[in-house]
């Protein structure tokens, strides 16, 4: 299986250069090839989850004394399936979307390379291969972010992304350097056998949390994410938001649950705090955005927060020996990894459809698209319902499992956690409610009402490849919501590997009953049946529709149309995205966003229009990013002098460095 996955990944690498060629044939080849390769990876990864034993493979390249190690186990197989499923739909979607991209030659070569690099991160079994693939992943996605480089915003986003990627990778580099120890045991098997403990081990874990956390978009390291993710073409945004953040989560899980040995509950608490903050702040920022893709990117921050809360709970329970509950929390987190990948990609695809049909990302210039793009609108609605955690969709299943784990917090012996975890639970509940508001707003303003611009009024439905890819994802959302056990059975293998304990309700085998009722701890106690909910929803809808049609008067009445409260024919007088967000902005605004509202009201008799402007500042930007940005700019300005030296002056620092290194060697003896 590992060989097949490696061959498919190598095929993706080969496909990259083909994308440089112009013409439709090359584009089709890249997409067909990507579909084939991701299908192979998906098939083998799923096969592994149901019936596979960890296998390793060593290839003779990489550092001279360290060959490239690869290994597949249940954890990497799970993430591989998530990535290749989304990669597969992205390739299908790409067929249609690439026609709307200005310069396809800037997108096509890096699309398969990006997928290949993510696959390699997941199967790497030594620090060198892991970091190399990680960096390739960052670089490939960076090229995709600058694909549309003519917009000045994108250039800035790309710069910030590059700087953050470099900082993140250097943190991981240092972390792996510490974990490898002084003997330089860079293979993961050696690290697993002899984890570094004590203060040095803690430093390594902290560096991994920073490095992987910044990639995943944890608050307060998230500020690059809403800039970079929306800048890429939409199917790439889907991959970055839906999948690349998951690769970062994989790095977090791999180190904290596997390589670093047994961590104390303190690290779980750290993750809980970071996750809770990310969940609430992410969705609050999302609610304030008028740009559809930026909104989706901020919502990724929220969902990563939910996943990290689950991981933190798993660590806390594991540190206290409650492996059953740890398994529950980890299943919740990993299930949300899959679920978020599905619905976030679906929504990004939807935003790509809107963008290609209207050329607009700003919700204030959209509206009424449900009449012109009915399929896109319906599929976007499914995604919105799923991300808002409405049953019977998949978002509900994983968030509900997370809550089940949180509700078991009182069994923890530490008082800090007894009180702290319910607080995190409250934050999560707040985030879930705000997410619903956010996506009511996103769907309502974009697809309902009347078009707010000519572009929106003249939109047309997109190609079948585009809505077809979305339909696949929407179907997955529904199936996983109705039958979540279908995903939990393979996840069982993952948690058994990592925690040594199966999912509590499945500890004594899988029965048909488990597929109908999802019971977190034991059958018969607080269980959920997606199928039953679906049946009830369908039944109630049918009954209401029947009653409405039957009992309503058949007489046709004619009268003045109800004007929904706005008799003004101007579409600009509709409820806008900003007005929807205003109450929440008022509640949290001054504290969290430092919102400044400015109303410019003309004097009576003055005919100029009144203006209203809102200015929001992300505090994370000012606290963390602005200093880094200024520092990098100052350092490059200084280093720029080095570009204009004579040979002699170029040589002098080289000579000085050589002598200094030689002196160190002498002194070290």
């Amino acid at each position: 299986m590992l060989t097949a996955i490696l061959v498919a990944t190598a095929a993706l690498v080969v496909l990259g250069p083909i994308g440089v060629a112009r013409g439709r044939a090359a584009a089709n080849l890249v997409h067909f090839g990507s579909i084939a390769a991701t299908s192979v990876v998906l098939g083998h990864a799923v096969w592994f989850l149901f019936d596979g034993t960890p296998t390793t493979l060593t290839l003779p390249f990489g550092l001279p004394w360290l060959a490239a190690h690869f290994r597949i186990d249940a954890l990497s197989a799970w993430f591989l399936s998530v990535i290749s499923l989304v990669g597969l739909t992205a390739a299908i979607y790409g067929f249609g979307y690439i026609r709307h991209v200005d310069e396809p030659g800037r997108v096509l070569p890096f699309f398969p390379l990006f997928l290949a690099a993510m696959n390699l991160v997941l199967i790497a079994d030594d620090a060198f291969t892991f970091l190399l693939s990680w960096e390739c992943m960052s670089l490939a996605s960076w090229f995709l972010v600058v694909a549309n480089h003519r917009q000045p915003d994108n250039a800035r986003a790309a710069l910030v992304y590059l700087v953050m990627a470099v900082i993140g990778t250097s943190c991981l580099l240092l972390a792996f350097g510490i974990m490898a120890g002084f003997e330089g045991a860079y293979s993961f098997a050696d690290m697993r056998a002899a984890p570094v403990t004590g203060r040095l081990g803690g430093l390594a874990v902290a560096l991994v949390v920073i490095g992987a956390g910044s990639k995943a978009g944890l608050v307060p390291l998230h500020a690059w994410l809403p800039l970079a993710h929306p800048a890429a073409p939409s199917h790439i945004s889907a991959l970055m938001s839906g999948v690349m953040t998951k690769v970062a989560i994989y790095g977090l899980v791999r180190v904290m649950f596997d390589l670093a040995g047994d961590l104390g509950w303190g690290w779980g608490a750290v993750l809980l705090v970071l996750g809770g903050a990310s969940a609430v702040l992410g969705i609050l920022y999302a609610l304030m955005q008028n740009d559809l893709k930026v909104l989706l990117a901020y919502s990724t921050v929220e969902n990563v927060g939910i996943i990290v809360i689950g991981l933190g709970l798993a660590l806390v329970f594991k540190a206290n020996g409650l492996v059953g509950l740890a398994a529950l929390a980890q299943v919740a987190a990993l299930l949300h990894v899959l679920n978020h990948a599905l619905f976030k990609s679906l929504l990004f695809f939807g935003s790509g459809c809107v963008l290609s049909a209207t050329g607009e990302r700003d919700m204030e210039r959209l509206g009424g698209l449900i009449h012109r793009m009915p399929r896109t609108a319906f599929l976007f609605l499914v995604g919105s319902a799923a991300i808002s955690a409405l049953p019977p969709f998949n978002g509900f299943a994983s968030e509900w499992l997370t809550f089940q784990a949180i509700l078991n917090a009182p069994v923890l012996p530490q008082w800090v956690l007894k009180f702290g975890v319910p607080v995190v639970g409250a934050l999560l509940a707040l985030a879930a409610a705000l997410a619903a508001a956010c996506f009511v707003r996103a769907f309502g303003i974009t697809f309902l009402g009347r078009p707010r611009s000519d572009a929106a009024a003249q939109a047309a439905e997109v190609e079948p490849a585009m809505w077809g890819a979305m339909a696949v994802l929407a179907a997955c959302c529904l199936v996983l919501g109705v039958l979540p056990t279908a995903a939990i059975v393979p996840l069982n293998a993952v948690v058994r590997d990592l925690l040594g304990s199966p999912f509590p309700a499945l500890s004594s085998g899988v029965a048909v009953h488990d597929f109908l009722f999802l019971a977190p701890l034991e059958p018969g106690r607080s269980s959920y049946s997606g199928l039953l909910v679906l049946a009830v929803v369908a039944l109630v809808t049918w009954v209401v529709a029947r009653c409405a049609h039957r009992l309503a008067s058949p007489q046709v009445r004619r009268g003045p149309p109800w004007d929904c409260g706005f008799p003004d024919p101007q579409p600009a007088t509709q409820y806008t995205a900003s007005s929807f967000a205003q109450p929440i902005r008022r509640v949290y605004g001054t504290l969290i966003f430092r919102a400044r509202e400015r109303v410019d009201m003309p004097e009576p008799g003055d005919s100029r229009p009144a203006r209203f402007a809102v200015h929001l500042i992300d505090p994370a930007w000012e606290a963390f990013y602005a200093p880094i940005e200024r520092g990098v700019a100052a350092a490059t300005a200084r280093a720029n002098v080095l570009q204009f030296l004579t040979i002699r002056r170029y040589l002098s620092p080289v000579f000085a460095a050589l002598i200094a290194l030689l002196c160190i060697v002498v002194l070290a003896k």
Partner: protein
Amino acid sequence: MIGRIEFDIAHALSASVLLLSFALLYQRRVSGVIEAFALQAVAVAAAAAWQAFTQDAPHLYITALIALLFKAMVIPIALSRIVRKLGMHKTIETVLGVNLALLAGVGLVALSILLVFPATSVAAVLTRENLALALSIVLLGLLMMITRRNAVTQVIGFMSLENGLVLAAVGVKGMPLVVEMSIAFSVLIAFLVFGMFIFRIRERFDTLDLQYLEAFRGDHQSERS
């Protein structure tokens, strides 16, 4: 087994190369630098020939011949022709004073001995001494390149650096000829490039002192203003 007298002669020859490196450092005239370099090349050739004799490795005679032909004759003669043609017998502009440069050179020799001796304690005695001397010569060549402003002396510094490499290469048993050949040719190419470079500077600016060159860099100018 290498006898005492073979060791002493090899040591003396390598040490004379090092001594001539110091001689290169204190020359104040371009012609003097070229002569000192020719002498150094002769010493390198002698050292290589001696190694060929003691190691019973005939291919090292070729190395010695290359050193003698190119570095002791062709290159110095060509360089002196250039110097005479350009009429530049004036003194060399130094960045670091001669005394300071010599002191720094002594420090570099001490550094290389400290570096090489502990690291190669198991290796043959002859190799150790030779490596320490060769490393000092390399470092001195670098030092010469960065402490002199004149283009010709930079070329010579680079080639004396390369002499150190050749000395290290011939001191180690079983070094294939290919390496030396490639090094010799790289030096020749470097000489050609530097030669052309010197002519171009001369044509443009009427001087070989690189100091004058710096003011004419367009980018730098705009940077300053």
